[in-house]
């Protein structure tokens, strides 16, 4: 067991190429600097967890990766974020195309007040007019991937708002999967859910890893340790430590990380 832990970092570190690279990312809300120069590289087909106490900037950082912070007035961003080598903050970058590559799931389940079917096909119908068969197939595939097909297959045309919180969140994940992004960002996707729904979503994320790159913000440290390959620890707008998850949890190099992991604050 100890051997496996010791050898794990090298294995994952060389296993997959980087997909998102951020270099010296600063972000200000007005004059308040929320991110103070973040350098972080995410690797394909891995789950990366971003952890840290409330207000440490982890969600803010997550939202710089698909430019959702652009929507907030008064935000200034400096630095470089590349997706497969392309600068996503360059003036020629199309945010619409970017967000199709980098999907996002939010903390509160937020299905549209439409039917489950219309929710899942929403992203597909934006680009053009897919045929009925294509849509049907995409609905089944993505709902199966999101492990909610069995729950909803008989009520696809009922309102998604009639589902339970956990089912709603999985429909929201299916809605993102249907667009076939490369990267999925999840902002505390299980914090509003009960333990059973949370573990269903965790299992699903582990299964999705083979097809997608997953970046997950979580408050729940055991969740991070259970499912992630790498973990980044944020504190007050700084990236304190980024390493293999096992290293972070068993053998952190920084004192702040150790204090946080061991529950001394946060």
């Amino acid at each position, binding site marked *: 067991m100890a051997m496996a832990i010791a050898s794990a970092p090298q294995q994952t570190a060389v296993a997959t190429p980087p997909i998102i690279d951020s270099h010296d990312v600063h972000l200000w809300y007005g004059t308040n600097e929320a991110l103070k120069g973040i350098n972080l590289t995410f690797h394909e087909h891995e789950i990366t967890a971003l952890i840290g106490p409330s207000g440490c900037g982890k969600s803010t950082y997550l939202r710089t990766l*698909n430019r*959702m912070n652009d*929507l907030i007035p008064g935000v200034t961003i400096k630095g470089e974020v590349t997706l497969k080598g392309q600068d996503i903050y360059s003036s020629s970058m199309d945010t*619409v*195309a*970017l*967000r*199709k590559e980098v*999907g*996002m799931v*939010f903390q*509160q389940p*937020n*299905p*549209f*007040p*439409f039917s489950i079917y219309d929710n899942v096909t*929403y*992203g597909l*119908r*934006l*680009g053009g007019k897919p045929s009925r068969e294509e849509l049907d197939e995409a609905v089944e595939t993505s709902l199966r991937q999101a492990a909610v097909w069995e729950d909803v297959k008989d009520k696809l045309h009922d*309102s998604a*708002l009639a589902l339970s919180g956990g089912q709603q969140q999985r429909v*929201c994940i299916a*809605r*993102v999967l249907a*667009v076939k992004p490369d990267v999925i960002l999840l902002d505390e996707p299980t914090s509003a859910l009960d333990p059973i729904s949370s573990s269903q979503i965790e299992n699903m994320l582990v299964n999705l890893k083979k097809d997608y790159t997953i970046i997950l913000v979580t408050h729940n440290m055991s969740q991070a340790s259970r499912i992630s390959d790498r973990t980044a620890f944020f504190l007050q707008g700084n990236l304190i430590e980024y390493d293999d998850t096992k290293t972070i949890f068993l053998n952190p190099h920084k004192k702040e990380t150790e204090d946080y992991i061991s529950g001394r604050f946060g």
Partner: protein
Amino acid sequence: MQQQDKIRESMLKPSQASKRERHGKILSFAAISLIVIVVVAIFVFVATRGIATFTVDKGNLWDFFTKTTWNPGQTDKSGHPLIGALPMIVGSFAVTLLSAVVATPFAIAAAIYMVEISPRRGYKILQPVIELLVGIPSVVYGFVGLSLIVPFVRTHFGGTGFGILAGTMVLFVMILPTVTSMSVDALRAVPRYYREASLALGATRWQTIYKVVLRAAVPGIMTAVIFGMSRAFGEALAVQMVIGNATLLPQNLVSPSSTLTSILTMGMGNSVMGSVSNNALWSLALLLLLMSLLFNILIHRISKKGALH
């Protein structure tokens, strides 16, 4: 022992605060009762008068809705009073529907601008303009309609200028602010996270507006439109000034015609209480009352259905 008795006594007696609460309850209940009594009284009064046309004066209900001759003082060969209200009914519905049809797209466009496209400018400029428009008395609208719109219609569309077209134009301006501000409320009530979810799926801003925000706001916008229609249906003065007030079935949009309200306001002063012509006017009032009741029920239905989502 004595102290215990004191506590016991104070607990058994109603306290100052609980007395005040009871007074408050009685007072607010009295206020509510008064309102209910007034509403019921109005209904009963209008209904008894309005129905008297058909019971006491032997008016024919079928004639009321289908005949086109409005001359309640006289009777036809079979002795029924001439109470054909069809011209007014058609007139009322025509101006109401037309003004709603014209106002709705403008109202939705303005609301989208104010909520989605430029909230700051919308709030600074459009909001005060709309509030101002709501506050203008209807006689002013009517006067403007009479001196500007009627001549405009006369020169560009022919006829005397009085008629449904002029009425529609005036009502359009009158209901636009109401429909707009209620549509603004409907759009604002759409949660932010719907917009975020849509944008995060790679939708453009415009796609987000018409595929998510507008769709989620449909019940609210329908309520706004029906509210505007009920205002248009009940508006009397401004319409009366521009519609021509001829109790004839409208031949086209520029022929002088009338609405339920305009005939009511025209006729009220010229009839004696209890006479057939007076009762016939009450029948028109009853129809108006029932229609506004219907609008209210529709609004309730829609907002309840919207709340389910």
